[in-house]
């Protein structure tokens, strides 16, 4: 398009040079072009058989077409696993050396069918679950198909069910994998069969229904000693304890796995688990318990009575929150132990058990991804997922706040604060502010942010001479957010943001503001307070600057805060708020109030009775309409930010901070901050 327009302009200049005898030439050119067109069309619409067939062969294959590998009887068997293996002895991290973004790369061997010398298959090629698992891995970010870059290898040999395994032949099959190397960095999945696969539709746990049984045991294959103990428990506690066993007299056609019996009473399994508060998980044939997943799914709290049982994902999941572990020796006391758990904790555990099931066990995909995440966390511990992320259910995560400055700490006064003055061109007023602020004893540095690109700041010699270092930073663009930039020049933790026209704040007021900040270093500490209100008629938030009894924001025309919030404002402000503020040249202070309240969950601190920065005498008579539009704009900001944050983080309080002896009947000259109190 662009090129043809250019030609248009040049066209007339070229044409006069053309000659009539070149007509033939044009015709030839034209025909060539035409031919080319036809050829292109043909190519476009011709069926591209090569591509689609390759698609076919890779994406859509049958498992029956999988290549067959014959394992000779004398092929090498890998050595036994080293039981003392640790991550730092047996795992080869060097292979994970070049994985970007702290993510391991996982390679999956392609599927083969292994047969022994006699042609008998070593195992079923692949089960439905293992196929699902490998699909989940391959669809995840971890997957790579480049074996050279992989750091973890997953054989496609299905080992999920130990019962169906021919151990020696499977071992031989593993040993001949191209990167086996004694199993280094290989991940094998071995699971126990869960309940019958078709029962999940029946199970949707009604949460608030009272549960009939306090303790229930549903396992079938138990050692007689355990059975005796359970029977004794039932005898002692009667109805509250239910011990189920295999049904002996079931009629034909009913799957035995879905029924459990107590004497002659028949119960549906696993539905009966929903009837119990606690469900026993006893040591069975293997330590891994199928019943555990049934129990979790039913929202029943597992009671683990198996001493050396390592619970699934116990490296990251805090099972104490979702289960009760009772030592095997204390099995007879189990009722007493459970009885001592308060009702609220029981509810908490039920919720937690449900959350674990939903997040980490309910699908093969969830299991596969949790497994890889754990290995990833081991290899990149500095990027690991936190305890809270693994364990807190979403309801807790939404409501909770993790204050970034949680350590109760009162910074030493000696450190002082850095004042940041944002200015455009009001040099005279700026100089007055500098002179006033420099009188504050705890000021340790003054930073002027020169936001005017068209004008140079005054010469060095013209600036007021003050006792602390004064730095001028020139900005590249006139933006409000420059005020909240984490400049390298800020060496103190405390920052005083101050406008270039705030001259009425006394030195006492500023010094006291700094003292208050030291006691609340994680909050915004400012002078005039503002409030947000819910407007019931309009169903939206409203900005309020009337002199009310409540405060939820402070103006940043003069406010102390921790410099970390500058970092948050510049780099972590949610949504488009930062650009929105710069575009509208308004509401940067409201944005800062939202940000700090959201991340700390705490209210602002208003200091001293001051209510306005400018002309405290004059009321709202001048510029009433201007004030009106200003209010509407500010209200819009609040609504906009509340929708971006997805919540209203601001907290309303009814207090402000004054010096201890403020307005007390006490000699003024003995007060630390006498010069406080004008509006």
């Amino acid at each position, binding site marked *: 398009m662009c090129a043809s327009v250019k030609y248009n302009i040049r066209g007339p200049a070229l044409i006069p040079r053309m000659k009539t005898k070149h007509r033939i030439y044009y015709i030839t050119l034209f025909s060539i072009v035409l031919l*080319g067109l036809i050829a292109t069309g043909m190519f476009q619409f011709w069926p591209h058989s090569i591509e689609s067939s390759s698609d076919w062969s890779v994406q859509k294959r049958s498992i029956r077409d999988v290549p067959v590998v014959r394992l000779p009887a004398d092929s090498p068997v890998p050595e036994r696993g080293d039981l003392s293996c640790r991550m730092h002895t047996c795992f080869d991290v060097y292979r994970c050396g070049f994985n970007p973004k702290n993510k391991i790369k996982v390679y999956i061997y392609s599927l083969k069918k292994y047969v022994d010398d006699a042609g008998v298959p070593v195992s079923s090629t692949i089960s439905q679950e293992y196929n699902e698992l490998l699909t989940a891995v391959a669809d995840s970010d971890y997957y790579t198909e480049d074996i050279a870059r992989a750091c973890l290898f997953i054989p496609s040999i299905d080992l999920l069910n130990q019962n169906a395994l021919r151990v020696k032949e499977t071992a031989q099959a593993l040993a001949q994998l191209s990167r086996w190397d004694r199993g280094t960095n290989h991940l094998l999945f071995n699971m126990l069969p869960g309940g*019958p696969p078709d029962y999940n539709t029946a199970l949707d746990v009604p949460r608030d229904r009272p549960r009939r049984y306090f303790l229930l045991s549903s396992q079938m294959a138990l050692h007689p000693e355990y059975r005796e103990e359970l029977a004794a428990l039932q005898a002692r506690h009667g109805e509250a304890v239910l011990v189920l066993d295999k049904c002996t007299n079931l009629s034909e056609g009913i799957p035995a796995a879905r029924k459990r019996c107590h004497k002659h009473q028949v119960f549906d399994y696993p539905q009966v688990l929903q009837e119990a508060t606690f469900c026993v998980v006893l040591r069975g044939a293997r330590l891994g318990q199928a019943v555990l997943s049934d129990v979790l799914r039913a929202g029943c709290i597992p009671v683990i009575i198996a001493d050396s049982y390592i619970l699934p994902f116990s490296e990251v999941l805090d099972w104490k929150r979702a289960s009760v572990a009772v030592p095997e020796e204390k099995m007879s006391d189990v009722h007493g132990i459970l009885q001592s758990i308060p009702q609220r904790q029981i509810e908490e555990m039920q919720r937690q058990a449900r959350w674990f099931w939903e997040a980490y066990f309910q699908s093969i995909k969830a299991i596969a991804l949790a497994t890889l995440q754990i290995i990833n966390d081991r290899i990149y511990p500095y990027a690991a997922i936190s305890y809270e992320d693994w364990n807190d259910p979403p309801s807790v995560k939404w409501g909770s706040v993790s204050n970034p400055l949680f350590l109760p700490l009162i910074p030493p006064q000696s450190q002082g604060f850095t004042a940041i003055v944002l200015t455009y061109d009001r040099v005279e007023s700026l100089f007055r502010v500098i002179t006033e602020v420099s009188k504050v004893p705890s000021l340790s540095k003054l930073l002027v942010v020169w936001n005017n690109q068209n004008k140079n700041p005054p010469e060095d010699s013209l600036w007021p001479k003050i006792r602390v270092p004064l730095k001028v930073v020139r900005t590249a663009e006139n933006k409000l957010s420059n005020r909240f930039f984490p400049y390298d020049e800020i060496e103190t933790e405390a920052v005083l943001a101050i406008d270039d026209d705030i001259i009425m704040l006394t030195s006492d007021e500023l010094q006291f503001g700094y003292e208050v900040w030291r006691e609340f270093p994680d909050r915004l500490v400012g002078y005039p307070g503002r409030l947000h209100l819910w407007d019931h008629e309009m169903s939206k938030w409203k900005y309020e600057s009337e002199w009310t009894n409540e405060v939820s924001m402070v103006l940043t025309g003069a406010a102390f805060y921790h410099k970390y919030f500058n970092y948050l404002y510049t780099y972590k402000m949610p949504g488009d708020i930062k650009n929105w503020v710069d575009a509208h040249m308004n509401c940067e202070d409201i944005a800062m109030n939202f940000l700090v309240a959201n991340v700390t969950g705490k209210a602002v601190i208003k200091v001293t009775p001051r209510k306005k920065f400018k002309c405290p005498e004059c009321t709202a008579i001048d510029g009433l309409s201007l004030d009106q539009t200003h209010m509407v704009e500010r209200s819009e900001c609040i609504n906009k930010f509340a929708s971006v944050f997805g919540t209203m983080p601001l907290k309303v309080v009814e207090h402000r901070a004054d010096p201890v002896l403020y307005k007390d009947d006490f000699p003024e000259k003995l007060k630390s901050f006498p010069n406080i109190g004008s509006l």
Partner: protein
Amino acid sequence: MQSWRRKSLWLALLASWLLVLLGLFPLLRLAVPTSPRAGAPQGWPRWLDAELLQSFAKPGELLEDGPRPPQALRGGSCNWGACFDTSKCRGGGLKVFVYPAAGPVSETRRKILASVEGSRYHTLSAAEACLLLLLSPDTSTGECDPVPPQWDGGRNHLVLSLHPAPCPRTFQLGQAMVAEASPTVDTFRPGFDVALPLLPEAHPLRGGVPGQLRQHSPRPGVALLALAEDGGRWHVAGTDFSACPWDGRCEQDRGPKQTHPGATLPNATFCLIPGRGPDVLHFLQALQAGCIPVLLSPRWELPFSEVIDWTKAAIVADERLPLQVLTALQEMPLTRVLALRQQTQFLWDAYFSSVEKVIHTTLEIIQDRIFGPSAHPSLLWNSPPGAILALPTFSPSPSDFPFYHLQQGSRPLGRFSALIWAGALGQPPLKLIQAVAGSEHCAQILVLWSSEKPPPTGWPKTAVPLTVIDGHRKVSDRFFPYSAISTDAILSLDAHSSLSTSEVDFAFVVWQSFPERMVGFLTWSHFWDEARGGWGYTAKRTNEFSMVLTSAAFYHRYYHTLFTHALPKALRTLADEAPTCVDVLMNFLVASVTKLPPIKVPYGMWHQEARPPPLEPGGPGLRQEPQPAAQNCINQMAAGFGHMPLVSSRLRLDPVLFKDPVSVLHPRLLHEAA
């Protein structure tokens, strides 16, 4: 002619453009498919017959599983369930007996003994104890103890050694648990043994040095990394450590080396500690300094790893990937650096700064094992104020404590209970009861009758329930966790106190913003008395304060539990003997938990009208200058705590329109403010 030529030219041009456009697309398509085609086998193939695959287990397959008998105990592989007999701890919970030392007692051993004896779990009788503590032989005495009398194969024994044992054990450990400093991961039995920190010889008994961190974020320009060197020294690496390798092998370019003689603390953001044995001592140093420990494949178990989530305070990395670790440290987001730094300080202050804390933490871990399901949740161990100060017996739910509302997204309950302590008194404090009952936030009034005389009968009718509890005539009784207290907030009052309803309302609303602190009306401040070489405190009005009087103060009911169950008995006795001491003690307790000052709200000048002096002259003399005996009490408290926990504040929280000319101008506002 001209026009024809021009036309043909145009046509040719158009056609060539079309050609280019049409021709380019297939070319593009040829160019692009290389990636999809290479990526075509990406992922696991979608098998055509995936639906037909069989499940890995047949339904009901487990029915065939054989049962397994209970496991017989195998020697050497003790675990908690098998080797510890909790039946002895039923009822009274953990009771600890410590074998008396034979012969001369070394300094470390004396500290351990004092710590155990100061613990609320200590008992003097071996018969009623459920945990028997055997101190490992000492370095200085060099004697190896014989097998103790109640040994019983080591059952319910904890063998504790703060320093590596100098002589081989003369007896088999049997079923005893071992608590030793930095055990190797190979011999450590998780969930049974306890890993202790390796403490320096001169570690203080109580209190301890506070953490070195004075500010939340690292100072700009501070070194990123300090390397642990032999002899307890640190080598602070400059910002350029590309030349300097990791494991101390770099000898050539040490540049402006800043090694400090002796065991000084590192000044850097991260402290690199190799995983070998001798470097363990560095770990605690780094923790104290607020320097985030970076451990390279440690061969020793991290202290108290059973309960402390070290991923929140340290980085355990693989020593084989040093460059990756270095990059990760350089690129670590500020948010995480901040969190890690603060956590190091919290852990140091809560569990490591004194021998007493280490011993108490050890006992607390054993107690948690006995408690089973009602042990400390992980949150209580891993966030301030720490598990020693957060008693799990108080409540199973963290949101009942004053400390975890933010993390739990909860709020304290919206009402308070007024607890009026009536010592020597003939008449019910009618005015006070009316004023308190008038508050919309008041849920109940409890009168704690602590006089010899029977309580009078003429209690006023109030809108809220009023209950009279018979106290035990001890001053410390006013801080007993009475089961009748049903709300989170307590308004503690003396019968002599005089408050107005609006004062109560405002103070309660302020308390809701600071549920972990005390909010009071009258204040004292403490000071260091150079002349007497000790602490003193005064009731004079000054520009700062550090204590609020419990004769009129809001605080969380949890502090009653803590006061009664966690404070050493000696301190409570002291308070009973000198009644004004009880205020000091309560303020010490809350300050040592929160590490923050209390909050003062305005008193007695709400309506700018004349009011009687805050407290009746006949009252317990709270406005008077404390007596010398009471002055002494603050020093005894400070000794008992091992440090001075009080923190001063210079501010008072007033209502937003307090004493405001505007509220005078606008009667409506005045009305609201009142």
